[in-house]
């Protein structure tokens, strides 16, 4: 914020400079008075204030700085256990649901491409359900969450290596209307 203020001050200086130059048009140049003379009192205050005071009115669900913008939970092979690193994310979304009772979400479970497509539908469902169960324990309501499975059918990564597979073993949170 301090940097922003400094920039604005500098901008103000230039603005002042420009206006000073303008005002001095037609004036005697031989006076030799530098155009930037009134630097001690630049009109920065009125310009800077509204910017500084502007509150950030953003959607917490899409604000990149908010954990609620993070929507994916990743899993180990053949596992639907929510790893510790994803618990803050799930907790944050559960809190959002408890604070916004009209909010609804779908949790989409996904698997990597190995194995039976139908069994993978069931595994993806179990992954989505594991996220839902944790959210219910944290106060979200049953009616706010639908869990569905895409199995291995909608891979985010298309490779055939562990990097792609681990990217695809995933639950995604999608809010209604998104």
């Amino acid at each position, binding site marked *: 914020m301090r940097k922003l203020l400094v920039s604005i001050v500098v901008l103000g200086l230039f603005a002042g400079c420009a206006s000073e130059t303008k005002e001095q048009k037609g004036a005697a140049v031989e006076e030799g008075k530098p155009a930037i003379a009134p630097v001690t009192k630049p009109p920065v205050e009125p310009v800077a204030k509204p910017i500084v005071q502007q509150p950030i009115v953003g959607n917490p669900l899409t604000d990149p700085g908010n954990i609620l913008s993070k929507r994916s939970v990743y899993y180990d092979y053949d596992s639907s256990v929510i790893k510790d690193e994803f618990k803050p994310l799930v907790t944050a979304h559960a809190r959002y649901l408890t604070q916004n009772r009209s909010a609804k979400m779908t949790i989409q479970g996904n698997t990597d491409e190995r*194995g039976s497509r*139908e069994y993978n539908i*069931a595994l993806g469902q179990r992954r989505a359900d594991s996220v839902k169960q944790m959210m219910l324990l944290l106060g979200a309501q049953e009616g706010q969450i639908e869990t569905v499975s895409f199995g291995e059918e909608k891979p985010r990564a298309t490779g055939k290596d562990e990097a792609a597979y681990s990217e695809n073993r995933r639950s995604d949170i999608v809010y209604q209307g998104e």
Partner: protein
Amino acid sequence: MKTNNPARFFLFPLLWLLVTPAAYAQLKIEIIGFGSTQFPIAIAPFKAEDTLPRKVTDIVAADLYRSGFFKIVDSGGLTAIPAEPADVQYPLWRARGADVLVIGAVSAMSNGYWDVRFRLLDVGKQAQLTGFAYQVTTTELRRTAHKIADAIYETLTGDVGVFSTRITYVVKNGTRFELQVADADGYGAQAVLASYEPIISPAWSPDGTRIAYVSFQQKKPIVYIQSIYTNRQQVIANYRGSNSAPAWSPDGKQLAVVLTKDGNSQIYLVNADGSNLRRLTNTSTIDTEPNFSPDGQWIIFTSDRGGSPQIYRVPVTGGAPERLTFDGNYNVSPRYAPDGKSFVFIQRSGGRFNVAVQDFVSKQTQLLTEDGVDESPTFAPNGRIILYATEIRGRGILAAVSSDGRVRQRFSVEAGDVREPAWGPIMKGQ
């Protein structure tokens, strides 16, 4: 004719491709291994079949060759085409090594139909084994050739022929998915459904007129039934959560489906119009991939109730399921053999997924493939061939293996991935 369809499904002649690209037109197919006994059969050109868009005998020979149980004896260089038994020079065919000979004739009828007739002759006994005549339209000629191949196959092997049956499968081309129906030899492919969302788990109704499948077109898995004649699509199961894995009862009156509306994936029964839903399994684990026994009394399915996915059997009326597989920690996708005596499934071993068959009585398991990336096995309605999905150089293709593991074939499309095959029933009276 569908020959200009870019997604036309054809038999991929991997070995022949290296020799000549024109092999496509010859309907050759890659076959790895053959039956233990190969029956030497000669198929003489049918009289006047040159007037047809496609020679009937080419299709008959390709069918029989592809089965792996026949050796096609050269029938070229004839001075005269034998159309009737009286025309046949038996010593000539005996000298060429043929045990049986097919002769026939084609003629245009005044009503625009074709008369196609054939006889199967025993070269040694110089006697007719079977013979039929067909009056058909031009568009029915290919199916007529398949019917002739069926009649020959049935006469010589005692098994039902499946050359005139159809298969369905899903083609993924870029972001586009198509549910296609084609003849069992891959020709005449037609899309019955196209979508930019995935389609999986197609299952033929027992009368071959409808296909149940799972589509993600509503951004979640929903079970539909679609008529392949009218393309009318009907929702069968669209409940909260996921809806998948449809399987028809043998009488076509009900389906087993897998729903998550009450929690985890469980098997339910539902009438074929979507009514009268009732729950069959009741566990807190995964129960999926149901499949009816041919007598309609049992359902085999995949469950991880024992800690790993294994195959179980439960009476359709409910009750305690019996575990059927014990080898390894991943046995999935069971399908009954048409005679009900065995089932095919996918077995994972050391990270590799292969097709296996297990006998219900002896409980013996036979591994049929070694591809390592196999999925979705489906029996031909005569039980002699298993069609399944696999990959070659990262591309999805279909492959077939005889139920004794000896004969293998590969199918592919010109572009895209093929997966999720389901072999259709024998169409009675057609």
